[in-house]
C-alpha cells in the first residue's frame, strides 16, 4: 500500500540577513534572498524518512509568489516526488485563515486521497504557527502540533511532542495532519544529481485561484479574519540599578520594587517578608 504524503512548505526571507525598516515597521522582504522555511524543511525530512522505510509518494505544496518555485525545486532535489505551486496575485494579503482555506482547496484538488499532511510547526518570518492546525480544521482531520517524533504501524500513527515541559505521546489513525518542530528530523543535504534533475524533470504544477474554484470573497483581505494593526520592534529597556545603604534597607528596597515580579516567577507570594533591622 503506497502511503500518500503531503508536505506544505513556505518560502521565507533569510531573516538574519534582512534589513528592517523601523519607520514603517516592515521587513524589507524584497532585499532578502528566499529560502525554505527551516521548520518546513524538517517536516519534509520527516516525510523523506517515512519514504525511506515505506512505499510512499511525497507531494509538496507551496502557496506563494512565482519565486516560491525555488523551494519546491529544492524539495524535489531532496527527494519529493511531485510539486504544486499555488500562485495568484489575488492571494496577496491572505492571513492564516485564508491561507489554510486556499491550501485546503489545493489539497483536495491535487491529492485528495492523502494519508498524512506534514507542515512545519511555524515559519521564521511570521511565527504564527496557525496554518497547520487551521488546515486540519478545514479538512476535518485529527492533528497534533509541534511533534518531534513519529512512528507508523499499519494505519496508526504514534507521535511524540514536547509542549510546556510535558512530553506527550499521542496516537491517531490516518488520514491526519502533523506540524513538525525543529527538535529532530535534521534535514538531509540534497544530492547534486537531485538538484540537477529537479530542473530537468516533469516540472511543477501551478494552480491559480480560478483553477481552485476560489472567489475573491475567500481570499486576501476579504477572506481574512485577522488584520495586522501594527508591527514594531520590542525595545529592550535594560539598565543597572544600584541600591545603597544598610543590608536590610537594601533588601527591603529591593523587595519593594521587585517582590511582585519575583512572586509571579516562583509562583507564590513573598509579600510581607521584609527584613527588620536587628535592634
Amino acid at each position: 500500500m503506497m502511503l500518500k504524503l503531503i508536505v506544505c512548505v513556505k518560502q521565507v526571507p533569510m531573516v538574519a540577513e534582512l534589513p528592517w525598516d523601523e519607520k514603517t515597521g516592515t521587513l524589507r522582504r524584497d532585499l532578502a534572498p528566499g529560502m525554505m522555511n527551516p521548520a518546513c524543511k524538517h517536516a519534509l525530512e520527516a516525510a523523506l524518512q517515512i519514504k525511506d522505510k515505506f512505499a510512499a509518494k511525497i507531494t509538496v505544496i507551496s502557496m506563494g509568489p512565482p519565486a516560491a518555485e525555488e523551494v519546491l525545486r529544492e524539495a524535489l532535489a531532496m527527494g519529493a516526488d511531485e510539486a504544486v505551486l499555488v500562485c495568484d496575485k489575488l492571494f496577496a494579503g491572505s492571513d492564516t485563515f485564508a491561507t489554510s482555506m486556499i491550501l485546503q482547496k489545493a489539497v483536495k484538488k491535487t491529492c485528495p486521497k492523502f494519508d498524512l499532511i506534514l507542515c512545519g510547526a511555524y515559519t521564521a518570518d511570521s511565527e504564527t504557527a496557525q496554518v497547520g492546525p487551521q488546515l486540519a480544521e478545514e479538512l476535518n482531520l485529527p492533528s497534533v502540533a509541534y511533534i518531534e517524533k513519529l512512528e507508523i504501524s499499519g494505519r496508526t500513527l504514534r507521535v511524540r511532542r514536547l509542549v510546556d515541559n510535558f512530553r506527550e505521546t499521542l496516537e491517531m489513525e490516518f488520514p491526519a495532519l502533523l506540524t513538525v518542530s525543529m527538535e529532530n528530523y535534521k534535514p538531509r543535504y540534497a544530492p547534486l544529481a537531485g538538484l540537477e534533475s529537479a530542473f530537468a524533470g516533469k516540472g511543477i504544477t501551478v494552480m491559480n485561484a480560478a483553477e481552485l474554484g476560489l472567489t475573491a470573497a475567500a481570499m486576501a483581505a476579504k477572506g481574512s479574519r485577522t488584520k495586522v494593526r501594527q508591527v514594531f520592534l520590542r525595545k529592550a529597556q535594560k539598565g543597572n540599578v544600584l541600591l545603597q545603604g544598610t543590608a536590610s534597607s537594601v533588601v527591603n528596597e529591593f523587595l519593594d520594587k521587585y517582590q511582585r515580579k519575583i512572586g509571579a516567577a516562583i509562583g507564590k507570594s513573598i509579600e510581607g517578608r521584609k527584613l527588620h533591622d536587628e535592634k
Partner: protein
Amino acid sequence: MPNIHRIGDSSLQVNPSAKHKLIRDSVRNFAETELAPLAAEIDRGAFFPRDVIEKMRPLNYFGLQVPREFGGAALDSISAAIVVEELSRVCAAIGLCITVHNGVAVYPFLRFANAEQKKRYLPRLASGEFIGAFSLTEANAGSDAGSVETTAVKNSREYILNGTKIFVTNGGICDVALIFALTGFEPGRPQSSVFIVESKYPGFMRGELEDLCGMRANPVSSLFLEDCRVPEKNLLGKIGDGMKIGMATLDNGRLGVAAQALGIAQGAFEAAVKYAKERQQFKKPIASLQTIQNYIADMATDIKAARLLLYHACARKDEGAPFSCDASMAKLYCSTVATRVTSLAVQIHGGYGYSKEYDVERYFRDAKVTEIYEGTSEVQRMVIARAVLSQWTF
C-alpha cells in the same frame, strides 16, 4: 575590427539561472556546516578529513559531470564550477581534492576511455569509492610536459612502468592514477601515452606527503613506479595519445583551478569586508576610511570580472566550442585575482591578518599555488598568446 574579438566570443547568460542559485545555496550550506568547523584545524595539522569525504560521496561530489548511467550528477560546467567555488570559499584543500578528482582524473575517462574502461571505472570514481589523481609532473617535466622520463614498456599483455611522479595532488590517498609515460619516439620527438594505474598494482608506491605552504589538508605526494605491471587494457586512448590527452585534460582542469581561485578570493573578500566594518580605529570602523574603501572596491570588481570570465569559459565548453584559450584566460585571471584579493584581505586585517587566528592567513597561503599548478601563469600567457596570434591573418 580586429578579429581578436573572435576569442571568447560566446553567448552568456549573465543572470545565473535558478538552478545555479540553488546549487550554490546547497553547496554553501554543506560547506559552512561541514567544512567550516574543520578548515583551520585540518590546514594546521595537514590532515585529510576522511569523515567529511564519506559525507560528500553520496551527494555526488565525486561525479560532478559524470553521466547518470554511471552514477554521476551530470552537471553542466557552470554548475560544476560553482560547486568547486563554494567548497573553496570555505576550505580550498577540499575544493582541490574535488576539482582534481573531477577535472583531471575523471574527465579523461569521459573523453578518452573505451566502453569497457568507462563501465569498469566511472561508477567507482563517481561514487568516490575510488579517488583519482593525474600524474604528469616529474622532476624534469613541469611546464615542459613533453619531457616526461617515466617509461612504459610492453611485455606480453602488460605494460611495465618505471619512473617517479612528483607533486601529485590526492597522491597520498588516490586509488587510481592516470600516469603519463614514454612509449617510444616519433620522428623528432618522444611519444607519450597514458595508463590507468590502480594503487593496488604491484610496483606502485607513494612517497612521503609534501610539506607545502598552502592547501595543506590535501595529501600531495610523489608516486614511485618500480616495474609496476599495468594490464594492457588499461591504456587510455591509443599509444602516442599522451600529449593530446594531457592538453585536453589540462584545458578542463584549468576551469576547475579558476573556480577554486575564485572561491578563495570570495572567502577572503567576505572576511575582509566583515572585519573592515567591525574593526574600529580613529573611533570609527576602518570601512569608513577611503583607503580601505578603495581596496574593497577593487576586490569586488576583480572578483566579479573573474567570475564572468570563468562562467563564460564554462559556457563555451558546454556549447561544444573550443575553450582552451578561454580556460587559460579564466585560470590566469582568477588566480591573479586570488593572490591579489587575499593579499589585500590580509592587509585590511593588519597584524591580525598575519596571525593563524584569522582565516585570511590561510586564504593567503592557499591562493598562491593557483598561479602555479595546472599550468603556471606564464604557461597560460603562452597558450593565450598563441591562440591570439594564430587568429591574425596578416
